[in-house]
């Protein structure tokens, strides 16, 4: 890691090239730029998560810490390659007036041509696509479950301001549930007449799961409360009997379907690096999330 004090985008870009040459490997084969907007306290953890996700998606990772917007502008950066990264990283600290113009620092540092993803590990703008940094990216990743307060409101806000390219890790978290539920209906052609999602009281993921199920199955779903962790049970009712997937410990679930014995199935709550890696796998619009977000807004209004 090289520390650059009172620098600018050109200084950081020059250091990228210099550190690549120092490492003896001028070609890095990076496939995207990942911008992380984070505060000082969360920076280290977020960069750690990105480092692990970068194994699957070699990226230039730009951590942007937005400091106090008052006072003289100053840009400090730590720039590096290697050490567990499969790309380049810079952790850029902005202070003073430049905080309001962070995009002017990030824009020159985007890799040519390749896609840009942006991730807010905690609090995100209410309309990420309208955010000056968010506008630079085609993939905008928020995390309603990680905001400092108002998680349920956060997912409603994100769904309300949905625009192509937006996604939320609360949605990513339910992929294994959705996969298992879809597999259940692959195996048994049952007409679903209703059902419920049980989860801890505040769970943006559960809201999305209810919306997704209602949207796909065109029947109402109840949202029930439990002590968690996370989602604890999903029930699909049919005339042949219910399909129930229940998971009390956040790890191992029981899978029950009509006319079949109960079976254990591993359904572990995933960690951030896995979630982020899933998000970065596809960078085009997620149509199913778009439809789910629309449904969630409709359910909320009714």
């Amino acid at each position, binding site marked *: 890691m090289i520390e650059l004090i009172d620098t600018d985008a050109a200084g950081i870009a020059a250091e990228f090239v210099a550190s690549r040459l120092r490492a003896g490997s001028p070609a890095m084969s990076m496939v995207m730029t990942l911008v992380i907007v984070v505060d000082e306290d969360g920076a280290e953890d977020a960069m750690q998560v990105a480092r692990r996700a970068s194994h*699957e998606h070699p990226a230039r990772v730009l951590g942007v810490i937005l400091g106090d917007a008052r006072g003289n502008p100053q840009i400090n950066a730590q720039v590096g390659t290697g050490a567990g990264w499969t790309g380049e990283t810079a952790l850029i600290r902005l202070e003073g007036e430049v905080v309001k113009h962070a995009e002017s620092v990030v824009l020159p540092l985007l890799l040519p041509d390749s896609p840009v993803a942006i991730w807010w590990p905690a609090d995100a703008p209410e309309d990420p696509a309208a955010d000056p940094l968010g506008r630079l990216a085609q993939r905008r990743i928020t995390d309603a479950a990680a905001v400092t307060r108002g998680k349920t409101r956060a997912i409603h806000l994100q769904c309300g301001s949905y625009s192509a390219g937006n996604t939320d890790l609360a949605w990513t978290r339910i992929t294994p549930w959705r996969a298992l539920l*879809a597999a259940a209906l692959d*195996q048994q052609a049952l007409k679903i007449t209703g059902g419920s999602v049980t989860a801890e009281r505040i769970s943006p993921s559960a809201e999305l799961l209810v919306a997704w199920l209602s949207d796909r199955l065109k029947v109402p779903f109840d949202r029930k409360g439990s002590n968690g962790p996370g989602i604890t049970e999903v029930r699909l009712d049919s005339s042949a009997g219910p399909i129930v997937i229940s998971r009390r410990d956040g790890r191992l679930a029981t899978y029950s379907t009509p006319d079949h014995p109960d079976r254990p199935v*591993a359904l*572990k709550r995933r960690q951030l690096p896995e979630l982020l890696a899933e998000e970065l796998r596809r960078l085009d619009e997620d149509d199913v999330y778009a439809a789910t977000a629309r449904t969630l807004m409709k359910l909320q209004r009714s």
Partner: protein
Amino acid sequence: MTASTHWENPLRDPRDRRLPRIAGPCGMVLFGVTGDLSRKKVMPAIYDLANRGLLPPGFSLVGFARRDWANEDFAQVVHNAVKEHARTEFREEVWRQLAEGFRFVPGNFDDDQAFNQLRRTIEELDDVRGTGGNHAFYLAIPPGFFGDVVGQLKEHGLAEPNPGAWRRVVVEKPFGHDEQSARELNATLATVFPSGSIFRIDHYLGKETVQNVLATRFANTMFEPIWNANYVDHVQITMAEDIGIAGRAGYYDGIGAARDVIQNHLLQLMSLVAMEEPTSFDAESLRIEKLKLLQSVTLPRRLDLTTARGQYAAGWQGGQKVLGFLQEDGVRKTSATETYAAITLHVDNRRWAGVPFYLRTGKRLGRRVTEVAVVFKPAPHLPFTHAATEELTHNALVIRIQPDEGMTLRFGSKVPGTQMEIRDVNMDFAYGGSFTESSAEAYERLILDVLLGDPPLFPRHAEVERSWQILDPVLDHWARKGKPEAYESGTWGPSSADAMLARDGRTWRRP
């Protein structure tokens, strides 16, 4: 089972690409549980699939072997294999999901009682685990026993699925040792299983980098226009191993490098590199194009001048003193089995007429590497002095299959600081770790495809047979010509291989 043909699952949406395809209810019966293949590849792959959430709840694994084991002993064997060889982290809850479905049936392949018990075990699993009558029989055993096993499966009604269910059989190479034996082997399997239920595993085809050959060729504009005899001088396909036969003398002696590697891996690789564009990427379209290519492949007339073979002698490989092939345990001192094989092939079609394909493979070579090098013709005119381009050789595109997966483009560039001198430089693409550590092992992909009944990546019988037709004349020629030439371990093979290319005015790439 319900009529799945007109059932449209409302939770599925083709645009929902996050959702993985999970195999339907099913189980697998593994013959040969104590072998290397089972312990190092199949069992870990099953665990990794479960860990990635791709196996159906209730998936069951039945081991069959001549061992006096209970279910728990078998579970322990799988446990050890998984701990030692699985790609993904060991997680207790995944293990618990799997472990309830382990069963073991002791017995010989000619033991009627054992197969009766196997049938009862499978029926019990359908009952308590909900495997739905769907079972794959994985024959991780020498091909000599295939006949016995599938015969028993048929006799005990194990090969016949109930309506709506499936039974599949999975076999590994070698698919015979010549055309005749391949036909017989296929006939054995085909009397019991329909051709769509026979899955031949060539694990090379499960590799991400091999599938990427198709993506590179058919998803891009800039490679296809030069992918023909107008621009390509020749193609070299190499699979080199640094290890020796590593305790597999019993299998290897009498088989040799050409049967072990060229007949399957290298000819399959060649067909993917050289075939025409398939109409789509379904199994049938791929098979048609691969087979068409293999049918256009011809051997040169003079096999003595266009092939080479060798046998590794004692020497130093990468700083280790190693034995020669004839000194290895279990190898006949007079063995004429080749551990290095190189052949020249031509493709008689408009795209490739006049472009030789050189295929080579060997053990105890310089390093472990598999690659396809497409070597281009020199520019028709060079507006430089001869001296300026002395260091410029052929442009080349190298697809690195393993290790260090990626692609290299080799082309000429000006030497900095000189007036005008041009030399070769490499442009490297390495897809980070994504084709290696975090992506699935070939066996995971292939086993999942077996359970899903998705056949594009499995060679069909016609391809296997045609591959033997190509290779058989070479093998016959070698059989008449005495012993292979010795080459020192840790080098790039016998001098006859270099001479073979020198006759065409070419040289092997140092991979």
